[in-house]
Each structure stands twice: as C-alpha cells, then as structure tokens.
C-alpha cells in the first residue's frame, strides 16, 4: 500500500536551521523488541533518524511502545533485533552509564537524599570533573532552569514543576549528545504544562541539544516539535513536521489520533495525472493528490474547522443541525447530511453569523483542497 500523503511528507528533510549542514545524531533502524513471554512485539520494525539540534517527538497512544523505544536508546533494554547508532557509531554494546545520552524521567527520579545542587552535580561527579568546574556548571544549569535560589533544598520541598526543572537541569548538566524525555510534563497540571512547554522549547534552542521527546498528548507534540513520529502498536505510522502530520495524515489512524476529524467515505469521479476528484456526502467535490481509479471508494478525512456552514441553498449539500456543543472559544455542530453525519467547528469570532440551533436547516460547503485521502477500500 502506498499512500500519496507519505510521498508528500518531508520525512527526509531535517528541519534544523540550516538543512544542508545538519548532521544525523541518532539512527534507529529495524528496531524490534519482544518482552519475555509477550506474544506481541512492543516494537515492530521501527526506523527513523534524528538530526542534530532537532526537537523530535514520539507521539502515540498508551502502550504503543514509546517507553520501550526510549529505554532501548538509553540502554535499559536490549533490542531483540535492529540497531541504534549515535553519531554513526553503534551503541548497543554500551551500558547506560557509558552512553552520552541522558534521560528526564517521567516522575523525575530525583535523588531524595541529595539537595538540588547535589542532584545536578551528580553526573558531573561521576564523570570526575574537578570541583570548580562542577560548581560552575551547576550554577549555570540552575540559572538555565531559573531555580538558582533553590540550590540547597531537598527535592521533597519543591513543587512538581520545580522538580521537573531540576530533573531537566540534571540531565542537561553533562551536556549529553541526546536528551530523552519520557512524558516529562504528564504529571503537571494543565496551566503549568503549557508554561513548561514553551520553556522546554526555549531551553532546547538555547542549549542546542538534540531532544527526543515522548508524549501521548498531540497538542504538546504539535506545539514543540520540529518533527513528530506517530506510533501505534509498536510501529511508526508517519514521520513529518507538525503541519504535515496535521494537514496531511498518512492514514486513518494518524488522521483520527491527531486532532478531530470527519472520516468520510468518498467515491472517485475523475482522475488526472497524480490528481483526482472525490465526491463525498453525495455532492461535495474534493481534490485528492493521489493515483486513484475512477469508481474507487476511498476514506477521506476532513478536519472539523474546514467544514463551512452556509444558509440553506448556498452550499453544495443540505444538512439538518442535530446538536450543538459549546466549548468556550468555539462550538461543535453535529449535522445530518442525508444518512451520514458530519461535524463542524464554528469559531466564535464571527459575531455576524449566529450559531445554528438544533433542528435548523443549513447547507455545507467544503473547500476542495481541504481533504486528505487516508484509506482505500479493497473493492
């Protein structure tokens, strides 16, 4: 199966400031991991590479193998097969304490019997740096995470957000080649999570360290990443820039996992060179950049905000409003179009256009370029 969307995606283009000089930091190829006594692999042929200075995110639902992949890279698990290379050298035979890779653990794993400063100094001591250099580096790191005044406190006396920053400072202190972050923000409340998101990104830019970030929160992934790899069932479904993942999902899983979407069934009506026209909802024509055959049935994803509601008769097809759900900044409208259902997201910016009420009649318009073909049914 070859999807058009994949070929459009910028998988191979490193996003760093200057793509021409960016060099590869980490390469994972053909990673397979079976846990003992587990019938299904936790990782099933995972391959990707991360460029230097890149903020790369692994995004996927719970249990898809993100942690397993991260632990394999850190050296806590052995792969069943496949290889992991850092700067071109295989690191599989190295123990965790021999890999120039550091991890920010999900629950921070700060050493409770050491002060904040001692925690940050820990890796530097193990690397046998001299006392002066350690002191300087610790101060530098605490300043970076804006917690210089907390240096002598024990971790238990810090808030969750502060502990998070210390864990980050500690992992960054030895200046690793690669920083692994396993859902580092998941234990924080929503507001703090948003703040930390910006801050993480800034720190990454400031330090220039390559980040491999793991999350199941799509908003987090889209907001921070240079590139995102969407994982499911131990496999990588799609790799690309956030916009590409959102606007051109490679398949139905990616389309439904990222953002909200209408999964519609379409019929191919016209084909041209690498382009086609697909009809959905019995009357709306959409453009598809794929090699399709006339008469073929395909799955089409249309984002909620791409559905435009117009007064009856002005759009391509008529619809009846079934239900409206108020969500603060916008309202989701559930529509019935013939026998099919459709959802639209109306932003509350346009005062002139009132939100329709259940039972109202209206018509639907979708921009021809707004759709993505995500699946082809086997005729």
């Amino acid at each position, binding site marked *: 199966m070859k999807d058009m969307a994949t070929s459009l995606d910028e998988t191979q283009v490193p996003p760093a400031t200057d793509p021409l000089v960016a060099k590869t930091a980490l390469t994972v190829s053909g990673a397979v991991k079976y846990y003992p006594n587990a019938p299904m692999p936790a990782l099933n042929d995972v391959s990707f590479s991360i460029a230097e200075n890149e903020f790369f995110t692994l995004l996927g639902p719970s249990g898809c193998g993100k942690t397993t992949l991260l632990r394999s890279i*850190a*050296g*806590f698990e052995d792969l069943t097969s496949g290889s992991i290379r850092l700067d071109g050298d295989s690191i599989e035979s190295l*123990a*965790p*304490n*021999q890999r120039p*890779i*550091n*991890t920010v*653990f999900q*629950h921070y*794993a700060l*050493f*409770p*019997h050491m002060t904040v400063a001692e925690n940050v100094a*820990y*890796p530097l001591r*193990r*690397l046998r740096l001299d006392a002066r250099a350690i002191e300087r580096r610790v101060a530098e790191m605490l300043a970076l995470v804006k917690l210089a005044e907390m240096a002598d406190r024990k971790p*238990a006396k810090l808030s969750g957000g502060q502990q998070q920053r210390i864990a980050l400072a*500690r*992992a960054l202190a*030895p200046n690793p080649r690669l920083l692994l972050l396993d859902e580092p923000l998941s234990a924080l409340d929503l507001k703090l999570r948003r703040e930390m998101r910006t801050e993480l990104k800034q720190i990454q830019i400031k330090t220039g360290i390559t980040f491999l970030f793991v999350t199941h929160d799509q908003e987090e992934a889209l907001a921070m990443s240079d590139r995102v790899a969407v994982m499911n069932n131990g496999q990588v479904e799609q790799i690309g820039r956030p916009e590409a993942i959102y606007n051109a999902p490679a398949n139905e899983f990616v389309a439904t996992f990222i953002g909200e979407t209408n999964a519609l069934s379409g019929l191919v009506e016209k084909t041209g060179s690498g382009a086609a026209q697909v009809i959905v909802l019995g009357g709306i024509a959409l453009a598809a950049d794929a090699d399709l055959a006339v008469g073929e049935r395909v799955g089409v994803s249309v984002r909620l905000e791409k559905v435009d509601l117009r007064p009856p008769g002005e759009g391509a097809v008529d619809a009846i409003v079934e239900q409206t759900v108020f969500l603060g900044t916008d309202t989701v409208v559930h529509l019935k179009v013939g026998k099919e259902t459709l959802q639209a997201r109306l932003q509350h910016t346009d005062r002139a256009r009132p939100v329709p009420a259940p039972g109202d009649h209206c018509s639907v318009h979708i921009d021809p370029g707004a759709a993505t073909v995500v699946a082809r049914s086997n005729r």
Partner: protein
Amino acid sequence: MSHATRIDRLRSYPGFGPLTIICLTFLYAPLLVVSVYSFNATRSITEWGGFSFDWYVRAFNNPTIRDAAGNSLFVAVCAATLATTLATMAAISLLRGPPLKGQTGAVSLVSLPLMVPEIITAIASLIFFVTIGVPLGFVSLIAAHTVFCIPFAYLPISARLSGIEATLDEAAGDLYASRADVIRTILIPLMMPGIASGFCLAFIVSLDDFIIANFVSGPGSTTLPVAIYGLARIGFTPEINAVATLMLAVSILFVGLSWFLGRKTTQIN
C-alpha cells in the same frame, strides 16, 4: 469511641475489647511486677518496704553480672555488625535486578534460622564447633549469633530496599554511575534507616539469646542471660529483678528505636 460510625459498631463484638486488655495484661503484668519489685527495699514479695536502688547497686557490684554484661555487649555488637553487613549485601543482590538463578533457594536460606527450633540450632552449632576443633568461646559464640541474627537484620533492610524505586538506580546509571557508584551513592544512603533498624533488631536478638549461648559459650565468655540463668538456679534474688529490669529497658529502647526508624522510612516514600 465517640466517633464510632454505624459500621464500626456493627463490626465490634462484645468481649473482644476486654479480651484484648486481658491479653495485654497477660503480656505485660509479669514484666511490670518484676520491674516494680526491683525497686523494693526489702527482700519480701508480699510487703513493700519502700523505694530503693539497692538491688541495682548490688547488681553492678557483682563481678559475675558485670563481666557477663560486658561479654554480652561485645558479642552483640560484633554479631549484629557482621549480620547487618551480610544482610545488606544479600538484600541488594537479591532485590535489585531480575531474579538470579536459584533466587528462591537463596531467600529461603536467609530465613532458615527462623525455621529451625533454637535448641536444634544450639546443639548443631555445638557439634559443629567441636567437630572442626574451634574452642568454645567468643569466636564460636559470635559466629553462631551472626548466623542466627542474619534473618532478623534482613527483614527491615529488605523492606526498606523494596521501598526505594528502581527508577532511582536507573536514573543514576543514566547519569554515568557504575553499579558500585549506585550502591555507594544511592542505595546505601537511602537504605540507612532500614540498616539501622536491622542492626537494632540483630543486636537485641544476640543480647537476648540464652539457648545458643548456653551451649556454645566457653567459661570466659559467659553472657548475661547465661549468668542470670545460673543465678536463678541458685535462688530468686531481687538482684535478678534489677538486672532483668535493666535488660527489659534496653530491649524496649532498641525495639522502639528500630520501630521509629522503620516508620520514618515509610514516611519518606
């Protein structure tokens, strides 16, 4: 109980409370009576002749008791130190990392001294030392007590260690610590309350032991319980009450300490 809820009342049974009081009285009354009489100025059991420290002074001046007390302390410190060291090493190797080959066997071996009746341990140690030609004395006594104390030290140490998240080991490993570094800089400091608690228990067990000491101690290494037994054979004197009360106090002190340390550790996690 003023805030007893309905279910609390339903769950309570008449007589269980009084039985608990009887149970505690049964456990504490003999100890209490002995302690009280250790302060009695007269020798009599029936009459209270006033408060006095006489019997304590006499006990302290009794060379048999003094020497035995010194021996007991020396043996207990040595045995508890050895047992705690061995138990700490065993706990770290058994509880950190995937199960070793023969793990269950090793764990049951550690608790074996608890399963064997003490009298059998005692005569087995006696036969063993005689067979291999170790003269009965401090060496045999300390060796036998070390073996016997290992499970008592192991219990609080392993409990404490299992409470330390394995992610901390991983985090240290991730931050360039070797296995020895992890043990030295992370595990031992965090296990310290458990280790102290284990030491206290091992110390008390060694100090309290009569049966093993009775068989494997030599003429110069008589411990306090063996000496008390000898004195009690001759006749019950208030001096014995005084020593018994002191030993009681030491036991309660150490167990209280061990308990306190154990509780403190659970609060950290």
